Each structure stands twice: as structure tokens, then as C-alpha cells.
């Protein structure tokens, strides 16, 4: 079905970016005008994301511009993540940048640049997840790096500039590998699909996947995994994460960790579907398992030795991305579903954690574990949220990540990977130790004398509260539309085809989420029983 909303989803942030660039020159009026443009854009994009996803639920997939833009259930999940977290990071930015203006860390001209780049970055991520053209997907991923470089280096300090340089160089070099993978797939597809314009379209390549050259596809996927994996925070190219996340303004770190890494994973998943349909899933699943375990297993030990809250959170990203890859590597409907759910859950929790660390920075002017003490005294609400956030991140019940981690481990055991799951659990325990060490150091004890009591304000607490509600809600229940979307996305990943997730003929065959109510743990055991029984 044709959907003009896909175009508006891209036009709105692009226009907001241009307007912000102009509004930054309005002198004293700049701040309120910029904030109106900014909030209007993120709100409209969220609404459009909901509309597009609603259309996907009804029609299966929607497309426009000669199928250059397309959304199916898999795309729908990512559109929701980008739209929702873009809105929340946008809301958080208001309070955060006001604070930066107050303490002189930003001036009005820089504020204009910040919002202009924020929306351009937002646009590039939306382009990635709505593009059906594999080469434009690469163009969009490369553009995410370029648009966020100056956001990372926004403060212009020595560490911020160093972080920005490392970020742009490592990611540009890494993503160039992705271009090779993309070119190889295209050049293979163009031999099969006679209409050359169609050969770059993902859905057309999927329909013709059986005729593609297996050797070329394997080589292409290795390039894709290395290339886009650099931006997704996959081993061994995740070294830019701690530097970037610790030096970027907190709303930017939240967008990078909660949204950008997912956009890169989205591209990897899209390519894996093509390869799986052409040569079977064993090749990509093996690579996912290897790189997943390596990402998880190496990152957790870096977490143990960190003294900066953001660097610790940054290393927690490859830990979680590793788990997502392990789930995708296990494959099948349950593994895939668990991976996608972990991806969604991690996005919510990690964004919340970076908002919280932003609040801590505003209070203490530091993120060092040697300085930040007694948060429960200094800012009790932020302290309680941090407590909840860490529990959610380690995967404690009743928070959402518990559910997805439980699904992954159960799927692994059911598919005969008991030892691998034990190793993963061991690594997760190391991450658990590191996060609790940080938590006890930050929330307990006496606050420093120079830190005043009090919270950081409504706009910096509201996004955290909204996320806390979502994190808790998704830990105990699954809203029917989201369940249907995840189910549809699982179908896209496992079969390459999309049907209307709200109820199509193909759905019954993959009804792995019949009600998704409580008690979920029991239900999943039952589901996995069905799976292994099959």
C-alpha cells in the first residue's frame, strides 16, 4: 500500500534542521523559537511513526517513491524506536541545553547548531530504517556519522574533540567496508534482476534471493557485518563507544546508544535475510553467534574497570548487542523474537540510563565514580530512578530486560546450546557485578558538600519517568499491537515475507505470541516446548 506518511517522516526533521540553523541567529529570541521548532518536529515525527506503524499492522507493508521507501513489521519496530526515543531525547534536550546555557557551556549560536544537527541526525536515522534501497541504506548510515560528529564534539574541549575525531575516523573507515558488501550484493542482484533500478531494492532482491551467487553473498555478508557492525558496537570495532558516549552531550549519547546502534543492526538484519534465503541460515547464524559471544565476553571485563559512569554504560552496549546477536544466531522464530525484544528493551533502558547520567552530570559537574556519591541524598528521585534503571539493565524481574534475557537463554537451551548459554550467563554476571559496584558507589554514602540538594527539573525527569513506566510495563505485559508487530517482524526475519501482523494468513503458522500476558515466564517455557517439540 502507498503511504505518503513515509515521506513526511523524513521531510519534517529535515525542515526542522534547516529552520533551527536559521533560528540560531535570532539573538534573544533564539532559545524559545528553537525549542518550539524542536519540540514540534519530534512530536510530529512520533505521531507519524505511530501512523506508519499502524498502517504496517493493517496492511503488512507500506511503500512510496517507487518502493525506495518502505516499511514492513521489521521496519515498523525500528521506526517506533527512532520516533519514541527521538521524542524523549528531544524533550530531555530542552532542560539539558538550558542548563548548559546557564553555566556557559553552550552559547545561543551553538544551541542553533545543536538543534540543527540533532534533527539532521534524526533524519538520517529515519532514512536508514525506512529505506528499501540497499545502497541508500549505506548512504544514510554514513550520513548518521557525519551528522553526529559535531554533536559529539559540541563542547570543543580536548577530550570532546579527540572523541569526535576517533568517532568519525573509525566509523567512516568501518562503514566503508559496508559499502563493499552492499556493492557486491547489488552487482550480484543486477545479474539476476533484469530491471537495473529494481536490483538495489531490498524486497526485489529478497524475491530473487534463490538465484544469487552463494560465494559472493558470503563475502558480501562478512563485509556487511564488519562494516555496519562498527557502528552497531560489535566486537572488535566498538572502541569508539566509550570515548564518544562519555564526551557527547547526554541526549546525544542516549540517541547514539539507544537508536543509532539499532539502525546499524537493522541494516545487518536486512542483509542477513537475503543471505539466509539464498544459502540457508547456518552461515549468518554462525557469524552472529561468534561475534555475539566475543562482543559480550570482552565488553563485560572492560565494564569492571571503568571509573566513569558513561564509559561503563558505553561498554554495556556491546554486552547487550552481543546478546542480541546470540539470539539472532540461535535463529528460528523464538530466537529471532527474543533478539528483537532484547533490542527494543535495551534501547529503552540504555536511553534512560544516559538521561540519568546527564542528570548526575548536571548535579555533580562530574561523572567520575570518585566524585559522584550520595545521589539518594542529593537528588532522591534521580537516585531511585537510577536504582530502577540498573536493576532493569542487569535483567532483574519485573523489568523488561528480564523477559528478553530469559527468552534468549531459554531459546538457547531448547535449541541444544546449553554450554553456550552458561558461558553467556557467566558474562552477564560479570556485567551485573560491574553495574552494582557503580550503583552502590553512586547512590549510597554522603553527598559532597558543594552539591546542593534538589532535582534537575521537569523536562529532564519526565523522559526518565516515561521510560521507567514503559520498562516496567513491558516487563509484566505486552500490548497487543506491539506483540503483533514483533510477531510480524519475526516473520520477516525468518521468511523474508511480510503479512499484515494484525491478522493475515501467514500469521497463524508463526503464532508464537498468542496472548503474551502473565505469567510470561511460564508461557515462554510452554512456547519453547512447542518449538522444541516441532
Amino acid at each position, binding site marked *: 500500500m502507498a503511504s505518503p506518511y513515509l515521506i513526511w517522516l523524513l521531510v519534517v526533521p529535515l525542515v526542522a534542521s534547516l529552520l533551527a540553523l536559521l533560528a540560531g541567529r535570532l539573538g534573544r529570541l533564539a532559545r524559545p523559537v528553537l525549542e518550539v521548532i524542536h519540540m514540534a518536529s519530534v512530536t510530529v515525527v512520533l505521531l507519524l511513526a505511530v501512523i506508519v506503524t499502524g498502517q504496517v499492522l493493517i496492511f503488512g507493508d507500506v511503500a512510496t517513491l517507487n518502493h525506495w521507501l518502505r516499511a514492513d513489521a521489521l521496519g515498523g519496530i525500528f521506526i517506533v524506536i527512532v520516533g519514541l526515543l527521538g521524542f524523549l531525547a528531544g524533550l530531555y534536550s530542552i532542560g539539558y541545553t538550558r542548563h548548559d546555557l546557564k553555566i556557559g557551556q553552550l552559547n545561543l549560536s551553538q544551541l542553533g547548531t545543536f538543534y540543527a544537527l540533532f534533527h539532521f541526525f534524526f533524519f538520517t536515522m529515519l532514512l536508514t530504517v525506512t529505506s528499501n*534501497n540497499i*545502497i*541508500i541504506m*549505506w*548512504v544514510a548510515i*554514513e*550520513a548518521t556519522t*557525519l551528522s553526529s*560528529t*559535531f554533536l559529539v*564534539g559540541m563542547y*570543543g574541549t*580536548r*577530550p570532546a*574533540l*579527540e*572523541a*569526535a*575525531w*576517533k568517532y*568519525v*575516523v573509525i566509523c*567512516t*573507515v568501518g562503514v*566503508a567496508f559496508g*559499502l*563493499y558488501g552492499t*556493492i*557486491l550484493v*547489488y*552487482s550480484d542482484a*543486477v*545479474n539476476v534482476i533484469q530491471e*537495473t*533500478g529494481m*536490483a*538495489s531494492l531490498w524486497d526485489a532482491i529478497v524475491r530473487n534471493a534463490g538465484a544469487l*551467487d552463494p*560465494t*559472493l553473498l558470503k*563475502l558480501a555478508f562478512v563485509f556487511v557485518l564488519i562494516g555496519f557492525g562498527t557502528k552497531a558496537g560489535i566486537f572488535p570495532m566498538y572502541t569508539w563507544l*566509550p*570515548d564518544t558516549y*562519555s*564526551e557527547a552531550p547526554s541526549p546525544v549519547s542516549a540517541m547514539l546508544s539507544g537508536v543509532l546502534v539499532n539502525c546499524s543492526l537493522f541494516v545487518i538484519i536486512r542483509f542477513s535475510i537475503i543471505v539466509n534465503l539464498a544459502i540457508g541460515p547456518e552461515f549468518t547464524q554462525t557469524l552472529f553467534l561468534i561475534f555475539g559471544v566475543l562482543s559480550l565476553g570482552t565488553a563485560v571485563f*572492560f565494564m569492571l*574497570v*571503568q571509573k566513569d559512569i558513561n*564509559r561503563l554504560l558505553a561498554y554495556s552496549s556491546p554486552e547487550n548487542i552481543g546478546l542480541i546477536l546470540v539470539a539472532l544466531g540461535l535463529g528460528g522464530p523464538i530466537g529471532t523474537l527474543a533478539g528483537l525484544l532484547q533490542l527494543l528493551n535495551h534501547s529503552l533502558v540504555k536511553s534512560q540510563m544516559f538521561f540519568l547520567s546527564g542528570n548526575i552530570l548536571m548535579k555533580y559537574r562530574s561523572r567520575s565514580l570518585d566524585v559522584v556519591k550520595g545521589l539518594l541524598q542529593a537528588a532522591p528521585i534521580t537516585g531511585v530512578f537510577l536504582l530502577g534503571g540498573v536493576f532493569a539493565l542487569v535483567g532483574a524481574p519485573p523489568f523488561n530486560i528480564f523477559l528478553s534475557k530469559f527468552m534468549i537463554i531459554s531459546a538457547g537451551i531448547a535449541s541444544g546450546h546449553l554450554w553456550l548459554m552458561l558461558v553467556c550467563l557467566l558474562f552477564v554476571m560479570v556485567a551485573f557485578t560491574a553495574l552494582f559496584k557503580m550503583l552502590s558507589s553512586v547512590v549510597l554514602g554522603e553527598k559532597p558538600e558543594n552539591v546542593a540538594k534538589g532535582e534537575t527539573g521537569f523536562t529532564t525527569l519526565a523522559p526518565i519517568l516515561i521510560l521507567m513506566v514503559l520498562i516496567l510495563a513491558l516487563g509484566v505485559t505486552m500490548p497487543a499491537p506491539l506483540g503483533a508487530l514483533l510477531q510480524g517482524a519475526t516473520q520477516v526475519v525468518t521468511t523474508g515475507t511480510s503479512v499484515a501482523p494484525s491478522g493475515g494468513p501467514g500469521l497463524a503458522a508463526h503464532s508464537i505470541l498468542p496472548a503474551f500476558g502473565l505469567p510470561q515466564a511460564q508461557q515462554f517455557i510452554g512456547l519453547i516446548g512447542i518449538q522444541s517439540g516441532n
Partner: protein
Amino acid sequence: MLNANLINTLSGLLLLTSLLVIETRKPRQSAMLYSFQSLVLVTIFLALAALMGAPQLYLWAASAFITKAILVPLILYRALAKADETITSLNTVSTPISLLLVAVAVVVSYTVVSQIELKSAAVFIPALAISVAHFFFGQLCIVTQRNLFKQILGFCLMENGSHLTLALLAYRAPELIEIGIATDAVFAVIILVLLAGQIYRRLHTLDSAELNVLKG
């Protein structure tokens, strides 16, 4: 076949010009040599357009001429005029080792490329292997050069390699795709140059080894 040989030979010239770009000690001279290299790339696009009967490659040649032979070298040249002229490149590996690594990249690329069945580019296997090696050569430049502007040139070399691969394998892609990739490449250079300029103004260095505050 004469034309195919011409393209393979010109690709070899591309690699030689890369060596000059990297081994020249003054970054401004490197920028000029990069412009010369881009002219070689434009010539390859023109030859390919004639040989394959692909008119879109004339457009690629025109856009590569404007962006890579003129615009990017000019941006680099002007940016370097403001930076300290006395800063020469600092290599972390010697010239013989660089040459050895290039040779290894060419052999490995040729071995891999010749294994793949590429119906559309079977006669261009040497050119294709060189384009891939060129890409790795650009990466080598980024890793081994400490001067930030030399690292940017490394990116440009890498990008020329992938652009040649793209022309050999995906020249039938819609023009908008080529425009997208070329725009990304130009903006990448502009952003890298702006950032290097900011680093030079604030930190008074163009040596990447001095960007060492963030660790662990």
C-alpha cells in the same frame, strides 16, 4: 580488449599515484597529487563509459572531476594553508614496509577477486583487484599516518578505491545512488577538515598521537 587493458593499466596508475600521495612529506603537495589521482579516476570512468556503452558513467566522470579533482583538493589545500606549513607527515611505518604492505594487499585482493564469478566484470579482474587493494591502501594510510590531514587523504584514497569498484560493478545503478555516495564522500571530507581545523586551533596540533587523553 584494448580498452579493457587500458582500464586495467590506468587502475595500476591509480595505485602508483596513491604511493606518491602517501609518501610525499608535505600534506599540501599530497593534496595536489590527490587531484592528479582523481584525474586518472575520471579518465577510467570515461574509458569505461565508452567501452560499456554506459552513458551514466559520463555523468559519474563529470561529478568526480568537479568533486574529486577540484573541490576536495581545493578544500584540503586551503585548509592546509591556514595550518602550520612546517608540519610534515609523521609515519609510523617506513616506506619499504608501506610498499610491502601494498604488494600484499594487491596479491590478496587479486586472489580473492579472481575466485568470484563476476559475469559483468570478468575482463576487469585486475582493475577490480586494484580498486579493492586501493581501498585497503587508503586504510593503511589512515592507520600509519599521524598527521590528521594525511589521515583525511587516506580516507580520500579509500574512497577512490571504492568508487572505482562501484563503477566497475554497479555502473547501471540509478544516478541518484551515485549522487548520494558522492555527496557523502564530499561532506565527509568537509567535516573531517573542519574538525581537524578545530583541533588545530584549540589544541595546536595535527599529530594524532597527541590525541591521547581518552583511554580504557
